[in-house]
């Protein structure tokens, strides 16, 4: 599956800025940035992206909570989700992929190689 359109959800504006630059200018993808889980749900329904990048620790509705709601929504349940986290303990990472996420990207990330990292997780030849 080739990626063309991505929703990036993170409550930190600095991560959104550098993530958007990376995904758009390095990856060549169309990018929609949102700052909370509820907006991610709306963007997923409206934009039907090829991928959702989801921060784990967010106020109100966190990444795993957003992911669970996406999986319950028939319009969004098939959209691959990759979590992003600065607290990447191996047992936690396994837990997220066991939930059905396509993968987990550790923060900090290299904005020049981030799109390749994502392709390796999501795109199947």
């Amino acid at each position, binding site marked *: 599956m080739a990626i063309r359109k991505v929703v990036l959800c993170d409550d*930190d504006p600095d*991560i959104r800025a*550098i993530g958007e630059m990376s995904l758009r200018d*390095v990856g060549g993808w169309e990018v929609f940035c949102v700052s909370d889980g509820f907006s991610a749900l709306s963007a997923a329904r409206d934009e039907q992206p090829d991928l959702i990048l989801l921060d784990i*620790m967010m106020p109100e509705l966190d990444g795993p909570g957003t992911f669970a709601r996406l999986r319950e929504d028939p319009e969004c349940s098939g959209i691959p989700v990759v979590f992003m986290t*600065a*607290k990447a303990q191996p047992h936690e990472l396994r837990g997220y992929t066991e939930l059905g996420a396509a993968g987990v990207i550790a923060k*900090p*990330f290299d904005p020049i190689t981030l799109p390749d990292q994502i392709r390796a997780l999501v795109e199947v030849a």
Partner: protein
Amino acid sequence: MSDEARLADARDKLAELRNGFKARLRERVAELEAAVQSASAGEAGGVQRTEALAHKLAGTAGSYGFPEVGEAAAELEALCDAGFDADAAETLLDRLRRGV
């Protein structure tokens, strides 16, 4: 646009973003210093605020090319989780300031 030209363009934009982040970084470090001070004084919510701010900085600073700041912030976050210690927190803040 060729892949090489696109990458060169992205690197230029990254340098601009990094300059902007560097200007904001001092403000973020000042917020963290205030939180550590509050935690060291035993004020309610001080440790939680330190942990939350350190967590954000741990994820962000390294992505913008400030790895020492990010690593010190990650250790400060872990310190809050394991049991806050004022002296250890101040040592980590010193490391963090040197990376700015």
